[in-house]
């Protein structure tokens, strides 16, 4: 079972090539087989896996997806050119990296197919000769008449008979253990397919909610200001942060209501490690922050504005454009943009704690900054990934395959009938120690009856 030629197919075609007929279909077959040979070779596996591993290292050394200035300040011009050319600032999404993964997937697929499925057609078992058997680490000879005692003992733990002829028998322990390896390989393909599905059809985004906000859309990640509909509405009922006595955060909880057609469908506390799953979307607690809420009185009327909110009344327009938590120790203030009587854009600062700077006359309106409140917001990450269940399936298969391959004892027992005796030998490639125990159990079972 040890070093195997990875290309059993090519040997077969070499034989047909001797034929005199110049047949195109044979030529075509050759190309296909050669392609199969190339993509099914373990050399390619070693090469491509090493390539993926080494380039992955690169991705941890060069900071990924950092702002441009960071690269400019760290690297020289030539290196930056290389970084841009090969997309080294986002290696794992660079076309050549994805290409390598695709080649790997094909390699894995072809390999699994040729080795584990094609091979089985003509599989035949042959009984090794006497000398090979007696040279095996686990072997003994037995009085010929004891076959009737031996076989039931073997059958107890080696249930499957895979060869039965005049010259002897072969029993196999846990024959399904040979499916461990193809299962491992297939599961990796399944995982790759799942992640591809996610890459193609999935998306990610972000939604910011203040207490009381209702939102039906979220901001798509990496696409500027493009928004996308959730397919339902969420209302932020509450957002709370709790702390441990030492001041480190204990819990972030956003209480949301899912609303469809004006009706509240469900209520849920979204926490870190406890997302909301609804209609295939997952909403995760991802960040929070404080944004100021400016409480103005404009000509005696109360107006609450957030940063960049536009307020308009009777041709008067004003927008709070900049918040500063502390202006030269004068306390918090906000800069407001407005249009003066001539339609010219102007700005003005309001400081909450300085009476003189609390109230101003802007374009004929009396504007007063009554207070600045801290308004907590919660940031939820929104993801849709139809590939996740495929990936999970792959994970489960991988673990099952690993278990079968590494922890299920496999091995064979050979019984060869000699003219005057039986020679019994056992071999296991992967589980020598535990197989020996099973084998010795058979010997011990015989000891009671057999003096030899």
């Amino acid at each position: 079972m040890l070093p195997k030629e990875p290309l059993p197919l090519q040997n077969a075609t070499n034989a047909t090539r001797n034929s005199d007929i110049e047949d195109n279909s044979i030529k075509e077959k050759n190309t296909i087989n050669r392609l199969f040979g190339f993509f099914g070779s373990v050399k390619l596996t070693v090469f491509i896996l090493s390539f993926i591993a080494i380039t992955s290292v690169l991705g941890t050394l060069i900071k990924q997806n950092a702002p441009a200035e960071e690269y400019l300040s760290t690297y020289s011009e030539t290196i930056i050119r290389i970084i841009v050319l090969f997309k080294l600032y986002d290696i794992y999404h660079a076309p050549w990296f994805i290409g390598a993964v695709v080649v790997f997937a094909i390699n894995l697929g072809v390999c699994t197919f040729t080795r584990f499925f094609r091979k089985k057609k003509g599989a035949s078992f042959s009984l090794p000769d006497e000398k090979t058997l007696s040279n095996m680490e686990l072997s003994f000879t037995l009085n010929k008449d004891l076959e009737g005692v031996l076989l039931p003992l073997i059958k107890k733990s080696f249930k499957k008979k895979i060869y039965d002829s005049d010259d002897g028998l072969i029993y196999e322990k846990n024959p399904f253990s040979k499916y461990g390896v193809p299962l491992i390989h297939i599961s990796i393909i399944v995982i790759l397919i799942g992640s591809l599905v996610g890459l193609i059809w999935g998306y990610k985004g972000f939604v910011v909610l203040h207490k009381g906000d209702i939102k039906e859309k979220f901001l798509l990640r990496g696409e500027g200001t493009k928004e996308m509909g959730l397919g339902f509405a969420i209302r932020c009922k509450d957002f709370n942060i709790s702390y441990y006595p030492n001041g480190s955060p204990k819990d972030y909880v956003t209480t949301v209501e899912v609303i469809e057609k004006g009706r509240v469908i469900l209520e849920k506390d979204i926490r870190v490690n406890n997302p909301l799953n609804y209609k295939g979307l997952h909403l995760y607690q991802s960040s929070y922050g404080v944004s100021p809420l400016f409480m103005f009185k404009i000509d005696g009327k109360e107006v609450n504005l957030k940063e960049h909110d536009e307020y308009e009344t009777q041709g008067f327009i004003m927008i709070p454009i900049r918040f500063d938590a502390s202006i030269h120790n004068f306390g918090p203030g906000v800069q407001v943009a407005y249009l003066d009587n001539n339609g010219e854009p102007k700005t003005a600062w309001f400081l909450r704690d300085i009476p003189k700077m609390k109230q101003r006359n802007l374009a004929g309106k009396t504007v007063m900054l009554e207070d600045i409140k801290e308004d907590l917001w919660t940031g939820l990450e929104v993801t849709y990934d139809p590939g996740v269940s495929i990936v999970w399936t792959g994970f489960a298969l991988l673990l099952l395959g690993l278990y079968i391959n590494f922890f299920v004892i496999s091995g064979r027992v050979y019984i060869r009938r000699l003219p005057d005796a039986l020679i019994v030998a056992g071999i296991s490639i992967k589980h020598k120690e535990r197989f020996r125990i099973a084998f010795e159990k058979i010997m011990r079972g015989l000891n009671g009856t057999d003096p030899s």
Partner: protein
Amino acid sequence: MELIHHKILGLATIIYVIILLLHFIYFAFKKEVIFKTIWWVIYINFILHTAGIIFRWIDSYRLDIGHAPLSNLYESLIFFSWCICLMIILMKKRLTYPIITMFSIIGALFFIAYASLSPGVDKGIQPLIPALQSNWLHIHVITCFISYAAFVISFICSILYFVRVDWSIMPDKDTLEEINYKSIMVGFPMLSAGILTGAVWAHYAWGSYWSWDPKETWSLITWIVYALLLHARFVKGWRGNRLALISIIGFFSVMFTYFGVNFLLSGLHSYAV
């Protein structure tokens, strides 16, 4: 604050030193009795080490921030050391060579001593930050560290493989290879399980099962190295030096995943383990 578990773990550290000394005594006198004694002391110390971890767990509840002690560098080092001790006990039948148990004990001693002696390691019990409050944390950390411990044994065998002195205490090369392969047979599936549970956890905590953060990437690299080793052995029939070399590379990758990433690179995992 000096808590009882610090005392227990301190004692366990001292006993690891004693086990090491017992090995020296064994090499001097080569008496079977001494080797038997070594195993008994290993068993006793394993119980002590376990008790230390359990007491830390209990202490954390006394401080009203109860959580399994698997959440910061100190706790992970203590647990890593414990896993190495567990691994020698599990592989006892195979580890009939005191030279291997000795180096394994040196490994366990190194990590437990590093945890308690290094000024850079905070020994206090910290409350769990929200991202770590998940049952996946436990299964993830346990599988990862069991695999790391198995790779420690594999590493030791690979290094010994290159030692060319004709000492009676040196196991023969076939034995080293066999133990090396056996420990990778435990390490590889465990590492796989560790990566997969980590991915499931990341899905629940960060909304994405794989984000190419340096720790994830390095664990994948480690995984690939050991996959290459298995294929070199099984498909190409490689044995001996070349295989031992891949195993050594794999172990460096493990250590970089564990330490290097924390100290040299930054990412999602940098807060803790």
